[in-house]
């Protein structure tokens, strides 16, 4: 522990792993967290490979696994993977769009030992929801799914993604979650990476709308205390302090892509020059402790000013690398969400300009992206 060469404490194991079983999904939400370059089905890890990854994760100290995607339920082997996670003591969460499973297949997952289900919603308004997901009838399917979750006895979280098209209805989205019997609702403003960055102008609410939404969430929290847990993710573009992204790069969390690449966060592939290791070639523990991508921004050694001398450096860990890249062009810069960042005002201005203009059409998340308008392409670098 002593010596200038290694002043940091020993590395703790990750708490959670997000497992992107597939990038296939029937919905086309323009803020999808998957990369622009979606992975194809033929490259996906096999059932055996995922089972081995689960074993390695549990051995490493991961406590919770999130089966995610894309839409994870399009993988027919999901019940086997859930059962395996349960067998080795992992807490399992299903992150789903809720449009692909029927009641019987959901019951099979519960039977296999699934601990919790998380259902995303686009809105309370059926028409807007269908427009955002580019999927007619999406809301009806989701409401049915939520009912089955409760009937089967699984705890439910509703994840409401907030953007300029639904921001005035945050309170109704929370009330819908209560009505559906959810134990928890996550009201999350869109974070602008990947698809959402490409669609920033189409999604960005105004500062006034955000402030109003925040007040409504606070009011709902007071009103619904003890009935439902409300988690609120504020939008970085209007923040003054950066979030502790992923609880710090390579400190608590890892993400595994469909083909087995291990990332410190789901958007890390947007950062040029980072090299990611695959579970196909290296043990997960070795990747966690020594992969170049995890080491790149771990701890505080990489930090420039104003982070390096800031008393918050081990609170927010410098904020978000992908956002620093998106706004300043450098992933090693301070997160512009911080008022101390030289790019803070620029980020605020981008949000104000985008939200003041009429919303352009969505660029929907698809395997073969549509042609992108040149102006947006420039804005997303």
């Amino acid at each position, binding site marked *: 522990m002593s010596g200038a060469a290694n002043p940091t404490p020993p590395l*703790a*194991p990750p*708490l*959670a792993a997000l497992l992107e079983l597939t990038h296939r999904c029937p919905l086309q939400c323009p803020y999808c967290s998957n990369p622009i370059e979606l992975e194809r089905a033929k490259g996906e890890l096999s059932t055996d490979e995922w089972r081995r990854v689960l074993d390695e994760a549990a*051995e*490493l*100290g991961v*406590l*919770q696994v999130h089966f995610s995607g894309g839409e994870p339920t399009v993988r027919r082997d999901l019940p086997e993977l859930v059962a395996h996670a349960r067998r080795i*003591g992992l*807490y399992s*969460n299903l992150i789903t769009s809720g449009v692909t499973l029927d009641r019987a297949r959901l019951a099979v997952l519960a039977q296999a030992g699934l*601990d*919790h289900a*998380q259902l995303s919603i686009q809105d309370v308004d059926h028409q807007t929801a269908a427009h955002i997901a580019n999927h007619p009838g999406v809301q009806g399917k989701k409401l049915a799914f939520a009912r089955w979750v409760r009937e089967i*006895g*699984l*705890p439910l*979280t509703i994840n409401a993604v907030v953007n300029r098209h639904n921001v005035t209805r945050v309170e109704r989205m929370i009330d819908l979650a209560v009505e559906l019997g959810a*134990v*928890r609702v*996550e009201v999350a403003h869109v974070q602008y990476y990947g698809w959402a960055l490409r669609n920033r102008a189409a999604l960005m609410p105004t500062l006034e709308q955000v402030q109003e939404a925040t007040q409504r969430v606070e009011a709902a929290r*007071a009103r619904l*205390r*003890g009935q*439902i*847990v409300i*988690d609120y993710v504020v939008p970085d573009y209007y923040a003054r302090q950066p979030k502790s992204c992923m609880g710090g790069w390579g400190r608590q969390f890892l993400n595994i892509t469909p083909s087995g690449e291990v990332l410190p966060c789901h958007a890390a592939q947007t950062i040029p020059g980072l090299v990611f290791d695959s579970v196909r070639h290296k043990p997960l523990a070795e990747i966690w402790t020594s992969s170049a991508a995890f080491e790149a921004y771990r701890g505080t050694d990489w930090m420039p000013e104003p982070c390096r001398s800031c008393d918050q450096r081990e609170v927010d860990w410098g904020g978000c690398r992908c956002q620093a890249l998106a706004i300043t062009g450098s992933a090693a810069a301070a997160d512009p969400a911080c008022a101390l960042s030289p790019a803070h005002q620029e980020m605020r201005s981008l949000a104000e300009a985008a939200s003041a203009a009429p919303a352009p059409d969505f660029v929907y998340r698809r395997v073969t992206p549509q042609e992108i308008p040149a102006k947006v392409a420039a804005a997303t670098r």
Partner: protein
Amino acid sequence: MTAPAPLKSAIRPGLAPGVRLSFDKARDCWVVLAPERVLVPDETALEILQRCNGSRPVDEIVDELASVYNADRGEIAQDVEDMVSDLIAKRILVG
């Protein structure tokens, strides 16, 4: 912030659906696993949580802890009630 409603000593707290108390070998400690949450209970909290099995009333849990630790019943009752009502509000326990 409004104070939580006073706890009825007859309620029988248990882990909420989707919540597990388990021993974490990698970190050598007990953890509470809940939706998007991992809590590490301290020694006192663990003693209380291990007795929240949905069938024992708060009163009985207090009696037992007071006797095991040979401690003032009033103080123990306060600790247990504060923790149980807080964890019920957070949906970690149900009563």
